[in-house]
């Protein structure tokens, strides 16, 4: 079956521009997570959604970052006024329900801010 998909796979943007990253989770998975992976920092949690509950935004690094999940399926991560330190690979994962259910990761979006 289809796994988690993310688009675009690569995004180059100029400092100060806004970007939107998309995640299509596995059908039927109620939980969706966003992580960021950068050199020297490893993989860090950003935000997760579970069903219709309010998302856990505790990992978002600043108010320039936001995310939404429409209809309990597709999610969009938006970064406003991008900075060079936002350059990283943004990974999305979904799971049947919250941990300890296995999280399935997408291939990520590589964001480069110039």
């Amino acid at each position, binding site marked *: 079956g289809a796994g*988690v998909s993310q688009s675009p796979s690569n995004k180059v943007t100029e400092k100060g521009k806004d970007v939107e990253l998309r995640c299509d989770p596995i059908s039927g998975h109620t*939980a969706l*997570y966003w*992580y960021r992976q950068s050199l*020297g*920092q*490893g*993989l*860090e*949690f950003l935000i*997760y959604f*579970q069903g219709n509950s309010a998302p*856990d935004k*505790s*990992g978002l690094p600043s108010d320039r970052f936001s995310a939404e999940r429409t209809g309990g399926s597709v999610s969009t991560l938006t970064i406003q006024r991008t900075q060079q330190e936002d350059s990283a690979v943004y*990974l999305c*994962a979904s799971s049947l329900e*919250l*941990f*300890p259910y*296995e*999280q*399935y*990761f*997408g*291939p*990520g979006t590589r964001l480069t801010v110039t």
Partner: protein
Amino acid sequence: TQLLEQSPQFLSIQEGENLTVYCNSSSVFSSLQWYRQEPGEGPVLLVTVVTGGEVKKLKRLTFQFGDARKDSSLHITAAQPGDTGLYLCAGEGPNSGYALNFGKGTSLLVTP
């Protein structure tokens, strides 16, 4: 502050050698997971260890969870080039709810 410390950071070995990767923390975890990530792809779950002292085997990979549930190790026997990748440990963190806290990973290169 990194909740999970992995060592070594990099490891380059020849095919057929054995190796051990460590994942340590000062915090207690209800469980720890090990993932493997290849370039351009997301991490893929290898195993979840839940009980202190637990040992799980996956072909040539042996995973151990420390008795105090603060550390874990991954041992690979007779490494093969196909084992090359980034090995990540992750735990359900005390402050992250249901999200995972990841170590920075061990990058393994196995050459023929």
